[in-house]
C-alpha cells in the first residue's frame, strides 16, 4: 500500500482470470469503512493511465475504486494483440461477464466497501464489460458506460439489471452508431431498466481519454467538454444511487 496523498492510498492487486495473471489497481481513501465503491473497466486497447487517474479522482472523493484488468499483465496491448483479443472476447459473453465478476470480487473483498453501494463504470469495450456484468445480475447500484459499445448477443438478459444505467455517448462516435443506440434503447425499454442515454454533440469515440488522439484513428479523439460533462453526470448519478440513505439493489 502506497500513501498517494494525505487522504488516498493506492496499490496494485494481482488476481487470476481467463487463464491470465491480471494486475488491477486499487485507489482508496486512507481511512474509513462503509464507503461507496466503484469498479472501473479500461478501454479495449488496455490503456491504463486514464482509468488509474480516474480511480484516484474517485478515491479523493471518498470512493473505494478498483480498476480491473481484463487483458492480463496490467499493460496496454499492441495494435495486433488488440485486434486479436477483442473479437475473441466479443464472441463469448460468458467470458466477458466472468472477467467483470472476478474484478468485482476483488473490489468487494476490500474491508472498506459498503456492498450495498457499488457502481461499475467502463470505457469503450470496458463499458461493454460493465454492462454485461449488470446483465448477468451483479449487485450494482449504478452502471455508467463512456463511449461504451452497447450491443449484446443477449439483450433479453437486461431483465437481470438491478441498478440504474447511464450511457454517455458521443454523437460522432463511429463505433457506437445511431443504429446501436436505437437497439440499446429498445433493449432497455423491453427490460424496463432504469436507464438514460446522454448524447454529447460533436464528441468522437474515446472522448474521455486525453491520449486518444495518439493512434491517429479517425473518429477517435479526446473532447474535454464532453469528458467533463459526462464525469459530472456520472457523479450526479452516484449522488442519487450511492447515497448512504439509498437502499441497495435488491
Amino acid at each position, binding site marked *: 500500500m502506497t500513501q498517494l496523498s494525505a487522504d488516498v492510498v493506492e496499490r496494485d492487486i494481482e488476481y487470476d482470470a481467463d487463464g491470465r495473471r491480471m494486475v488491477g489497481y486499487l485507489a482508496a481513501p486512507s481511512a474509513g469503512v462503509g464507503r461507496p465503491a466503484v469498479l472501473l473497466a479500461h478501454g479495449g486497447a488496455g490503456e491504463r493511465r486514464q482509468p488509474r487517474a480516474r480511480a484516484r479522482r474517485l478515491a479523493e472523493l471518498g470512493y473505494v475504486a478498483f480498476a480491473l484488468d481484463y487483458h492480463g499483465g496490467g499493460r496496454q496491448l499492441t495494435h495486433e494483440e488488440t485486434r486479436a483479443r477483442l473479437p475473441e472476447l466479443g464472441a463469448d459473453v460468458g467470458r466477458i461477464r466472468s472477467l467483470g465478476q472476478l474484478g468485482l470480487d476483488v473490489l468487494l473483498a476490500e474491508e472498506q466497501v459498503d456492498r450495498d453501494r457499488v457502481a461499475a463504470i467502463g470505457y469503450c469495450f470496458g463499458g461493454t464489460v460493465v454492462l454485461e456484468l449488470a446483465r448477468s445480475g451483479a449487485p450494482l447500484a449504478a452502471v455508467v458506460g463512456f463511449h461504451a459499445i452497447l450491443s449484446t448477443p443477449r439483450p433479453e438478459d437486461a431483465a437481470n439489471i438491478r441498478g440504474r444505467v447511464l450511457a454517455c455517448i458521443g454523437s460522432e462516435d463511429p463505433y457506437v452508431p*445511431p443504429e446501436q443506440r436505437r437497439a440499446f434503447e429498445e433493449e432497455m425499454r423491453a427490460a424496463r431498466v432504469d436507464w438514460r*442515454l446522454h448524447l454529447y*454533440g460533436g464528441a468522437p469515440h474515446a472522448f474521455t481519454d486525453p491520449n486518444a488522439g495518439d493512434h491517429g484513428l479517425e473518429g477517435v479523439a479526446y473532447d474535454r467538454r464532453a469528458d467533463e460533462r459526462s464525469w459530472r453526470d456520472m457523479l450526479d448519478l452516484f449522488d*442519487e444511487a450511492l447515497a448512504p440513505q439509498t437502499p441497495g439493489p435488491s
Partner: protein
Amino acid sequence: MRHEDIGYEADGLDMIGHLVVDESRTTPGPAVLVSHEGGGLDDHAKGKAERLAALGYVVFALDYHGGGARPPREQAMAHLQAIRQDPDRIRAIGRAGLDLLLAQEATDPARVAAIGFCFGGTLSLELARGGADLKAVVGFHSGLSTPRPADARNIVGSVLVCIGSEDPIVTPEQRAGFEQEMRDAGVDWRLDLYGGAGHSFTNPAADELGLAGFGYDASTDERSWRAMIDLFDERLGRPDA
C-alpha cells in the same frame, strides 16, 4: 423575494409575465427566461421560476397566450396552431419576454439562459436560432423540429434538450432530425434521453390530462433539473459568484 406580474404586448396580445427576483441581491447576477407549456402560464412554470429564484437567479416567466393564465384549451391549441409554422412570430414572442428580463437591474446581460417546457422549449430554441445572446438554452420535453433548421448557425450558447424515450410528440425521427440540424450548424449541444419517460415529465399535473404518452416522472424531473443546473454552473457561473 419579490414577485411581480408584468404586463406587456407581444403578437398582438396583452401578455402578463411573472417576475421573481431576490431583492437582497446587490450586484447583477445570472438570469433565466422561463417559457411555459402549451397550455398556458400556470403554477408549473411559475413553480420552476420560483425554484430557480430561490437558488439566486433572476427569473422571468414569460406569457405566450395572453392574460398570464391558462386560456380555454381550444383557444390555446388554436393559438399554437397559428404560430407553430411561423418562426418569426415565435421568436418575436420570445424576444419580448427576453427584453423584459434584460430590463431588470438585477440581470447581468452576459449571463442569461432560456428554458422552456413542451412548446415553451420550442420557443426557447427558436429564440436561440434567432441569434439571441443566450449562454444556455434548455428544452424539457420540447418539440425539436423547426421550419428553418439552417438558422441553428445563429445559436451562440450551449444547448441541452431533455427528452423522454416514450414521448409520443418528440419522436425518434424528430430527435434524429435535431441531431442532424445541430451537427450541420456546429452547435454546442447535448440530448439527454430519459428511459421510460413520457411527454410532460416535469409536470405533476400531467397525469390529470389523461392523454396517452403524457405523464409526470419524478426521477426524470429531478435528473433533468440537475442536468440544467450543471449546465448553468458551467455557462452562467453560480448565482452566488
